[in-house]
C-alpha cells in the first residue's frame, strides 16, 4: 500500500515538471510586459485612458475525429493558440461594457479575438499579437464609452442601468498544474471511432449516424492589471455518437450517446461504449415503431437519470428565466432592444430570499469539487475566466429559498459580488467566457427509494383520475454535436425554439405507464411545455440516489447571441465541442406534480426516402 502511494506521488511530481516548461514563462513574461506598457502608455487625446486591461492566452492541442459506418470522415490534430484581450475605459462604476451597440465592434467581441499569435514561444511575437489587439480594443472601448454616455443621457435609466459595471476583485495569483498527463493518441482514437461507428452498419432503419471524438488539452494563461495572474489547465475528452432516422409517418427521430470527461483515460472502455451505441440504436428502432402520443396530458411526470439532470440544467441553471445572472445592458437604440429581448424569460434577481422551488430542495455550486464517488467532474475549476477563485460551497437555493445567483464580475440588482462563475466555454473556434454552471449539486431533505417514486407517480395519477401517466428517461441535449444542415426545416425549428418560453428540449425516450398495471410502453411524438422554475415548487418525489452528469451546458440566453450561435453552428459543420463544461449531481429521479404534455408540432414533415437505405442490405 505504501509503495503505491509513493508511486503516485512520484507520478504527480513528474507531471508537474513536464507542465512547467519554460514555454509558460515566455508567455507570462510577454503578457506582463505588454500589459504594463499598455496600462502606462495607452492614451488618446480627449478620450479616457484604460483603467483595466486583461489578457487571456490559450495554448491548446486538439484532436478532432469524425467517423461514420466504420469510415473516417475527418481526422485533424493540431496545436493552436488564441488570445482574448479586454480593455476597459471609464471606471468600475461606469465603463464601456454592458452596452449593446450594433455599430461597434464590441458586439462581436464575445466571439473571441483571433490574433496572429505565434505557435512558437517568441517573446516579441506574442507581444506584437497582444499589442495590436490591445490597440484595437482600446480604441473601440474609448469610442463606445463615449457612445454609452451619450445614450445614457437620452434614456430614462432603470436602477439596473445604474449598477456598477465591474465589481472590484482581490488579486489572485495561482498556478494550477494538471493532475494527470493528457495523452492524445490519434491512431488509437481513429480506430475506436471507426469501430463504434461501424456498429450502425447493421441497422437498415437508421438513416444517418456519426461518431465524433474530440480531445482538447489546453493551458490557460490569464493576467489583469489588478495584479491577478493565473495559469490553469482546461481539458476535455468528448465522444459524441449521434444517429437519426424517420418514423414510417415521416417524423424525424434522433438519439445520441455522449461522454464528456476531463481526460481520455476517464472515458468508458470501447466495449462499454459499443454496448451503449447498440442500446441507442435498438432504442431508435423501437421508437420508429412506437405509437404516437395523441392525447393532451396534464398531470404528474417522472424524470429519471439523464432527463432529471437535463431538467435542472435546462430550466434551473439557465440565464433565461433561471438562476444564472445576466445583465440587460444599455441599448444604443430601440431597434437593438427589440432584437435582443426576444425569447427571453424574466430573470430571477428580484426573487432573492423568496421561495422559488420546493422547500425540500437545496442547490449548491461546488466548483472546487473535482471528484465525486470516484468520478472526475468536468465542471470543476480553481479559478474562473475573470481570475476570481470561486467559493467552495456556494448555496444558491437553501430549502427552496433563492439565496444568490451564479455571477461573474458584472453585478445584478441583488448579487453584488462575483462568486467566480464567469467560466470558460468552448466556442466554435476558441474558448469564450460566459456565466454559467460549474459543479451543481441538488439535494433534497425528503428522499425515498427510487423504486417507490414510480409507485408514487402512479398513485398521484390515480388520484387525478388518470388511466395513464408518463416517465421521461432521456431528452435531447442541444450540444450533442449532431450535424444540422441549413435548410428550411432547421430554420423553422430554430424559429420555433426562439418563441418557446419554458418547456424542455425534444424528448428522446418517454414511457406511457398504465396506472392500472404499472406497465410501461415506449411512445414518441410528445413534447413537454410550460416547464419553468416554478414547476419545481410542486416537486413531490425525490430519489435518494444521485446521478452524476458531465455535460457541455448550452448558452441558452435567447436573443441575438443565440441567432449568432445558430448561424455559427450550422456553418461549423460536424461534431465540434461547444458549451460550458458543467457537472450536475442531482437526484436520479424527480417527480413533478403537474406538467403538460402535448403532441409534437412540426411545420413540415418530409416523406420517407423513395430509394432504400443502401446500408444493412
Amino acid at each position: 500500500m505504501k509503495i503505491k502511494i509513493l508511486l503516485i506521488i512520484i507520478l504527480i511530481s513528474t507531471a508537474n515538471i513536464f507542465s512547467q516548461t519554460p514555454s509558460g514563462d515566455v508567455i507570462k513574461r510577454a503578457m506582463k510586459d505588454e500589459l504594463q506598457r499598455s496600462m502606462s502608455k495607452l492614451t488618446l487625446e480627449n478620450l479616457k485612458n484604460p483603467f483595466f486591461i486583461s489578457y487571456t492566452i490559450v495554448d491548446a492541442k486538439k484532436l478532432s475525429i469524425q467517423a461514420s459506418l466504420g469510415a473516417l470522415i475527418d481526422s485533424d490534430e493540431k496545436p493552436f493558440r488564441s488570445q482574448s484581450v479586454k480593455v476597459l475605459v471609464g471606471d468600475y462604476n461606469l465603463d464601456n461594457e454592458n452596452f449593446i451597440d450594433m455599430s461597434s465592434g464590441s458586439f462581436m467581441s464575445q466571439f473571441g479575438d483571433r490574433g496572429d499569435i505565434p505557435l512558437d514561444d517568441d517573446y516579441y511575437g506574442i507581444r506584437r499579437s497582444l499589442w495590436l489587439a490591445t490597440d484595437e480594443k482600446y480604441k473601440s472601448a474609448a469610442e463606445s464609452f463615449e457612445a454609452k454616455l451619450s445614450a445614457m443621457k437620452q434614456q430614462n435609466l432603470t436602477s439596473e442601468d445604474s449598477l456598477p459595471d465591474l465589481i472590484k476583485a482581490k488579486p489572485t495569483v495561482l498556478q494550477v498544474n494538471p493532475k494527470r498527463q493528457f495523452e492524445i493518441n490519434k491512431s488509437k482514437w481513429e480506430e475506436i471511432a471507426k469501430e463504434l461507428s461501424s456498429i450502425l452498419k447493421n441497422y437498415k432503419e437508421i438513416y444517418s449516424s456519426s461518431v465524433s471524438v474530440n480531445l482538447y488539452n489546453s493551458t490557460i494563461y490569464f493576467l489583469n492589471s489588478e495584479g491577478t495572474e493565473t495559469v490553469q489547465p482546461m481539458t476535455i475528452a468528448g465522444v459524441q455518437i449521434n444517429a437519426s432516422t424517420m418514423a414510417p409517418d415521416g417524423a424525424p427521430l434522433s438519439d445520441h450517446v455522449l461522454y464528456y470527461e476531463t481526460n481520455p483515460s476517464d472515458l468508458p472502455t470501447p466495449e462499454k461504449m459499443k454496448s451503449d451505441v447498440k442500446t441507442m440504436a435498438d432504442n431508435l428502432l423501437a421508437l420508429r415503431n412506437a405509437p404516437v402520443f395523441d392525447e393532451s396530458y396534464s398531470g404528474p411526470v417522472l424524470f429519471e437519470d439523464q432527463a432529471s439532470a437535463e431538467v435542472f440544467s435546462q430550466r434551473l441553471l439557465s440565464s433565461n428565466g433561471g438562476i444564472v445572472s445576466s445583465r440587460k445592458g444599455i441599448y444604443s437604440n430601440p431597434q437593438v432592444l427589440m432584437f435582443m429581448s426576444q425569447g427571453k424569460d424574466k430573470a430571477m434577481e428580484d426573487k432573492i430570499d423568496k421561495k422559488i422551488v420546493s422547500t425540500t430542495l437545496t442547490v449548491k455550486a461546488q466548483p472546487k469539487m473535482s471528484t465525486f464517488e470516484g468520478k472526475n467532474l468536468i465542471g470543476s475549476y480553481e479559478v474562473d475566466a475573470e481570475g476570481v477563485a470561486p467559493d467552495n460551497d456556494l448555496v444558491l437555493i437553501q430549502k427552496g429559498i433563492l439565496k444568490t445567483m451564479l455571477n461573474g464580475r458584472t453585478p445584478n440588482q441583488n448579487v453584488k459580488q462575483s462568486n467566480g462563475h464567469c467560466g470558460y466555454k468552448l466556442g466554435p473556434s476558441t474558448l469564450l467566457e460566459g456565466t454559467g454552471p460549474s459543479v451543481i449539486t441538488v439535494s433534497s431533505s425528503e428522499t425515498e427509494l427510487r423504486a417507490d417514486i414510480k409507485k408514487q407517480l402512479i398513485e398521484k395519477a390515480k388520484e387525478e383520475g388518470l388511466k395513464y401517466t408518463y416517465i421521461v428517461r432521456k431528452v435531447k441535449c442541444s450540444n450533442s454535436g449532431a450535424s444540422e444542415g441549413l435548410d428550411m426545416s432547421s430554420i423553422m425549428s430554430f424559429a420555433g425554439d426562439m418563441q418557446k418560453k419554458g418547456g424542455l428540449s425534444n424528448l428522446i425516450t418517454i414511457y406511457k405507464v398504465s396506472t392500472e398495471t404499472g406497465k410501461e410502453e415506449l411512445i414518441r411524438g410528445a413534447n413537454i411545455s410550460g416547464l419553468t422554475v416554478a414547476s419545481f415548487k410542486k416537486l413531490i418525489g425525490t430519489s435518494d440516489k444521485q446521478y452524476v452528469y458531465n455535460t457541455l451546458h448550452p448558452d441558452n440566453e435567447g436573443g441575438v447571441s443565440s441567432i449568432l450561435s445558430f448561424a455559427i453552428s450550422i456553418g461549423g459543420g460536424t461534431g465540434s465541442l461547444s458549451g460550458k463544461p458543467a457537472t450536475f449531481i442531482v437526484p436520479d429521479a424527480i417527480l413533478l406534480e403537474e406538467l403538460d404534455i402535448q403532441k409534437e408540432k412540426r411545420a413540415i414533415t418530409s416523406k420517407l426516402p423513395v430509394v432504400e437505405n443502401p446500408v444493412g442490405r
Partner: protein
Amino acid sequence: MNQIIRKVSLFLLFFCISISLYSQDKLIDILSGELKREFSVLQKQETPPYYISYRVSDITSYGVEASFGNITSVTDSRHRFLTTRVRTGTYDLDNSHEIRGDQFDFLGRIPSMIQLPLDDNADAICQTIWNATNKEYLQATDKYAKVKANVAVKVTSEDTSADFSKNAKAFEYYEKPVNPAEYNFDLNGWKEKVKKYSVVFLNDKNIYQGNASVTFYKQRKYFISTEGVKICENYAGARLLINAVIKSDDGMELPMYKTYFAYKPSDLPSDKTILDDTEEMVKKLGKMRTASVVEPYQGPAILSGRAAGVFFHEIFGHRVEGHRQKSENEGQTFKKKIGEQILPESITISCDPTIKNSAGLDLNGYYKFDDEGVEGSKVTIVDKGVMKDFLMSRSPISNFYTSNGHGRAQEGYQPVSRQSNLMIATTNPLTPEQLKKKLIEECKKQNKEFGYYFEDIQGGFTMTGRTIPNAFNVMPTEVYRVFVDGRPDELVRGVDLVGTPLSMFSNITDCGDNPGVFNGTCGAESGGVPVSCASPAIFVKQIEVQKKSKSQEKPPILSRPDSEKGTP
C-alpha cells in the same frame, strides 16, 4: 453482320475501359453503383429525375502562415466533398429555371458542404450519397412544380432558351494518381521558409502586419453523371503570399501583396527572388506611408500587365459569363454587342482553360474538364476588337446553345459560367517607352500636368445587376504619377480606379509588349474558382480615380514592441 460486329467490338471496347477504370479507383465504382441504383428507382416516381450527377473532390491541403518570423498557423488536412445535382423536368424546362420574383431564391443557392468518408468504404459513402440525393430530389421536385406555375403566370421571359443543353456524349476519362514525390510538400521546410520571408518585415518599425503564407493542395476530382460521363482527374496548386500593411499618419491602411503560383511547390520561386521582392516591398511601404494622397482625377493612364489582367477580369470577364445574359436580374452589358467593334482591332481576348503556362508562369485557370463534365475549350470572346462569343456552361442562352466548358463551381456549389485563363493579346505591341510617350502626348492634349501608372492591383469588384449602377471598382496598391515635364515618377496612395465598363473600353487604345500574369481565386455565386489573367500593359485615354475610403482608425498608438528593445 458487319454492323453487329462493330457493335460488339464497340461494346467490348467500352467494357474493357470500364474494367480498367474501376479496378484503378474504387471510388468511381462506388459512385457509379449508387448513381445507377438511385436513378433507376427514382424513374418510377411521378416526377422522375432526367439527370443526376455526382461531383467528388478529394482534397489534401497543407498550409503554413507566419507573421514577422513566427509561425501562427499550420494546416495539414484531407477532406472529401460531395456535390450532387438532380434535375427534374426536361432539358427544356427543369428545376434550375429562374423563378422570377422569388425573394427566397437565395436559399436554393446556399452551398451544401457534404463530407464523404475518406476511406473507400461503400456503406458509409453510399449512405451519405443516398441522404444527399434524397434531399436534393425532394427539393428539385418541389422547385419544378413552382417553376411550372411561375412560367404559366408570368410574361414570356426575354430569353426563352432551354435550361440544360444536350451535349450528352457518353465518355470516360481517367488519370492515374500523381506521383507523390513530384508533388511533395515539405511542411517543415516551408515553416522555415515563411519564417525567413516574414521576418524581413521587422526592418521597418511602422509595418504592423507582416505575413508570409504558403498553401498547397492536391486534388482528385471525380465527376459522374447519368449521361454516361465518368471523369477522374488530378489538380494541384501551390501559392505563396507575402503581404504587409503600414498605416499613414492620417490612418490610411496601405497594404501590399505579392503572390506566387505554381502547380508544384518545388516550382515556386527561389528564396533569393522572394527575399528580394520582400525587401523591395518593405522599401515601397516606407515610401508609401509618406506619399501624397490622390485627388479625384480624370485623364490618361497606363495599367501594367498584371493590373490590366485584374481590370479585364473584373470589368469584362464577369460580363461575358453566359448565364448573366439570361437572368432577368442582370444588366447584360454585352448581350446586344455581338458582332460589334468594342475594342481596337489590334486586341483579341480569349478565355482558354487548355493552357498551362504563359510568360514562363504556371496558370491557375487551367483545367481539362469543367464542373459539369464538359471538356474545357478556348473561347475567343473578342476577335480583332469585335465581340464574338460568351463563356458558356450547360445553361444555354439565345444564339449560344452549347457549353464551351466554362461551367465551374467550388465544392458544394452548383456550377455557372465562370472564367478560366483570360488572355489578352495584341497584334501591335508597344515598348514601355512608346507607351509612356503615348501617355505624355495624351496628357498634353488633355492639358494635364500628369498621367497615372498603375503598377499593381490587389483585386476589385464589379456589379452586374440590373437595378444597380453597372460600375466597377478596382483597388490598386501601387500607383505612380507620370509627369509631362519629365520629373521622376511619384508614388501616390489612396487610389481607387472606378468607372463603367463600356466607357472605359472605348478609351483603351494600345497595348504593351510584355504580358503580366495574375493568378488568383475568383469569387462569385458558384463559390471560389481558380483563375488567371494574362495581359500586356494597356494605355487608356481616359480613366477616373477617386479617393479610397480609408480606415478611420489611427495608426497603433504605441510602437511595435520589438522596436523598443532594451526597455523592460
